[in-house]
C-alpha cells in the first residue's frame, strides 16, 4: 500500500472564548490537518499542533517540515508489509519508523523536536491504513475501560471569570478540574475556585513554567491547604535536577509537561526522580506510538500519567486521544475533547464532546472513529497545500522503482 497524495490544511477556527495561560493567549485553533490518500482510494486524516513554547515548532516551520522532510519519505514508503490486524504495536512502530527523525534545529528558534509534524502525518497514515483494512484504532489498541472521563480546564483570566468557569464545570458534573495559574494571585485563585466547587472535586494546577524555583516552592506550599492533587510544570523547561530539587520540597506532586517532549526527556526525568506524573500529549510526543512508549516508561518507573491535549485540538486529535486514554493501563487524568465547547465549529460529523460528568463513550468506527467534514476544513483553512508525487516518479514507482 502506497500513499499517492496528501493535502495540508492550515486551520484557523475561532474559539467561542479565548483561552489564556501564563505564556500565551489564544483565541483560535491553528491546528494543522493533513489528509492522505492511498493508491486504493482510502483516505486518512491527521492533526498536529505547533507550539513554539513546547516543541519549538511554529505553524510555518511545521508545514515546511511536513512538506519537505516527511512527505517525500511517506511518498517513497511501501506500507503493504504492515499488518495492522496481526501485530498492532509492531505496525504502529513500522509506521513511526517510516518517518525520518531530524535532530534539533540551531539558532534562537531551536526546535526541540518536530513532534507536531510527526503527529499529523503519523495519525493520517494510521487512519488511512486502518480504513483501508476496515479496522478501528480501538481494535489495534483494545480499551481497558468502558468510557473515558475528562477533566475541565480553567483558563487564566480574572479570578471572577475563573470562578464562573468552575461553576460551569460543576454544573456539567465534572469531577476533575485543572486551573491555569501564573504570577497574578495564584493562591487566591485556587482558594476562590475551591470555595466555589466544594471539597468533592479534584483540583490540580498548571503554571506552564511561570515561576522560578524559589517562587514555585513558596506557591506550592501555600496551595497545600486547598487539596491540590498535582502541580504541572511549575518552573520552565530546565535540567531535570532542578525539577527534582523542587519536587523534594513540594507538598504537591509534580507533573512534567514542557520538560517532557522526547523519549530522552522521559528517561532523564525518571533518572533524576524529577516528577510524579508525566503529562503526555499526542502531538507534543510525536504521535501515538511515541506517546505509548512514554507511557510504558512512566509505568515502569511507577509514575502516574495524564493524557493531556493542546488548546484548540479538533476532533481528530480528540479521537486519537480517546483511543489512547481508553487503552492505557493506568491514566489518572484525561484532557481534551472540548470540541464545540471551545471551537465555533468542529471538523467531525459526530460530536466528540464529553457528556455529563466528563464521561465520553468509546469510538468504534473505522480508522480513528470519526467522519471528517471536508467542507469544514476548507471553510476554515487559511492555507491549503497539495502534495503530490511527480507523475514520472509515480509511474516509475508503480513499476516497482522509486525515484521520489
Amino acid at each position, binding site marked *: 500500500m502506497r500513499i499517492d497524495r496528501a493535502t495540508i490544511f492550515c486551520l484557523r477556527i475561532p474559539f467561542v472564548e*479565548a483561552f489564556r495561560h501564563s505564556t500565551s*493567549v489564544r*483565541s483560535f485553533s491553528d491546528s494543522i490537518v493533513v489528509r492522505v490518500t492511498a493508491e486504493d482510494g482510502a483516505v486518512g486524516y491527521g492533526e498536529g499542533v505547533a507550539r513554539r513554547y513546547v516543541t519549538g515548532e511554529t505553524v510555518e516551520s511545521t508545514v515546511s517540515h511536513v512538506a519537505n522532510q516527511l512527505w517525500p519519505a511517506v511518498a517513497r514508503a511501501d506500507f503493504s508489509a504492515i499488518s495492522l490486524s496481526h501485530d498492532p504495536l509492531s505496525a504502529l512502530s513500522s509506521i513511526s519508523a517510516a518517518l525520518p527523525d531530524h535532530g534539533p534545529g540551531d539558532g534562537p528558534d531551536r526546535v526541540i523536536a518536530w513532534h507536531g509534524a510527526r503527529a499529523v502525518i503519523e495519525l493520517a497514515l494510521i487512519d488511512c491504513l486502518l480504513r483501508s483494512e476496515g479496522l478501528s484504532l480501538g481494535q489495534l489498541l483494545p480499551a481497558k475501560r468502558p468510557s473515558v472521563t475528562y477533566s475541565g480546564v480553567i483558563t487564566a483570566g480574572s479570578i471572577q471569570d475563573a470562578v464562573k468557569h468552575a*461553576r*460551569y464545570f460543576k*454544573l456539567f*458534573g465534572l469531577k476533575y478540574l485543572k486551573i491555569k495559574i501564573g504570577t497574578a494571585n495564584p493562591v487566591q485563585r485556587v482558594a476562590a475556585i475551591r470555595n466555589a466547587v466544594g471539597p468533592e472535586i479534584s483540583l490540580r494546577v498548571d503554571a506552564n513554567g511561570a515561576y522560578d524555583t524559589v517562587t514555585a516552592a513558596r506557591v506550592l506550599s501555600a496551595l497545600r491547604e486547598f487539596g491540590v492533587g498535582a502541580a504541572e510544570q511549575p518552573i520552565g523547561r530546565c535540567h531535570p535536577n532542578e525539577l527534582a530539587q523542587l519536587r523534594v520540597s513540594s507538598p504537591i506532586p509534580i507533573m512534567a509537561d514542557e520538560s517532557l517532549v522526547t523519549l530522552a526527556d522521559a528517561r532523564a526525568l525518571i533518572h533524576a526522580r524529577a516528577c510524579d506524573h508525566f503529562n503526555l500529549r499526542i502531538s507534543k510526543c510525536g504521535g501515538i506510538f511515541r506517546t505509548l512508549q512514554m507511557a510504558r516508561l512512566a509505568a515502569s518507573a511507577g509514575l502516574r500519567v495524564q493524557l493531556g491535549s493542546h488548546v484548540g485540538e479538533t476532533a481528530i486529535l480528540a479521537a486519537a486521544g480517546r483511543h489512547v486514554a481508553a487503552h492505557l493501563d493506568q491514566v489518572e487524568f484525561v484532557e481534551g475533547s472540548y470540541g464545540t465547547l471551545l471551537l465555533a465549529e468542529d471538523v467531525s460529523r459526530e*460530536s466528540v464532546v464529553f*457528556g*455529563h460528568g466528563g464521561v465520553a463513550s468509546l469510538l468504534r468506527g473505522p480508522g480513528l472513529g470519526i467522519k471528517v467534514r471536508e467542507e469544514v476544513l476548507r471553510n476554515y483553512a487559511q492555507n491549503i497545500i497539495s502534495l503530490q508525487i511527480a507523475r514520472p516518479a509515480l509511474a516509475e514507482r508503480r513499476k516497482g522503482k522509486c525515484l521520489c
Partner: protein
Amino acid sequence: MSIRSLVESEYAAQTEAFASSEIFKSLRSGNVPAKVYDEFIARLCRTHLNSPQILAFLYSLAPPRVAESLKHNMLEELGLDEAGIAHSELLLRLARAAGFDQRACAELKTQSQAELHRLCTDPILFGTFREFGLTVLLEVTCFEWTLARLGKAIGDLLAEHRGLSWEDLLWFTHHAEVDQRHAEEGLDAVVEYANYYEFDETDFRLITEIVFRENVLLKRYFAKSEVSRPTLMLSL
C-alpha cells in the same frame, strides 16, 4: 434583576446584535447576490422545520401552568389549531417561491431531520432534562421574541430584494403576528419553568450565559459564529 428582565435583556441583546450584524445589514441593503438570500432562506427553513418536534419536547417538560400555551403553540405549528395553517407548509412555500425545486425541498427536510438527529445523539453536558430543557426553552423563546420584532422587516426585505410575493412570505407575516403573543407567553414560560424546577439564581444565570454566549440567531440563520458578549476573545 428578576428572571423575566434578565431573560428579556438577553433576548434584546441577541436581537440587536443580529439586526446590526454586517450580514443582516447587507441583506437589507440589497447589495448581495440572490444566492445569499437563498442561503438564508435555506437555513431559516432548516432551523424551523423541526419546530413542532422541539415544542413537543418542551411540552413534555412543561410546568402545569404553562403547559396549555406550549401545547397550543405546538398545535399551531402543526396547523391543528383554529387557523389550520401548518407552518412547515409556509416554510416550504417560501422555499419553492425562491426557486427550490422538489429535490431541493426534500434536501431541506433531510438536513433539518439530521439536525434533530444530532440533537438527540450528541452527549448532554447537563445531569438532567431539567437543565437541558431550560437551554432549549431559552433558545426557542429567543427566536419567538426576535421574530415578533424583526419578522415583518425580514419579510419586507425578501419582498423587495428577492422579489417574493406577500403570499410567499406568509410565514413571516404570520410569525410577526402570532409571535407577539408567543414572545410574551415564552417569557412567562421561562419564568414559570425556573420557579417550577426550583433553579437558584446562580445556576439560572450560568445556564442563560451558556445558551447566549454565542449569537444563536446568527449561528442558525447565517452559520456565523459570533460571541454575544464582551469576552477575553473580543478584548484581544
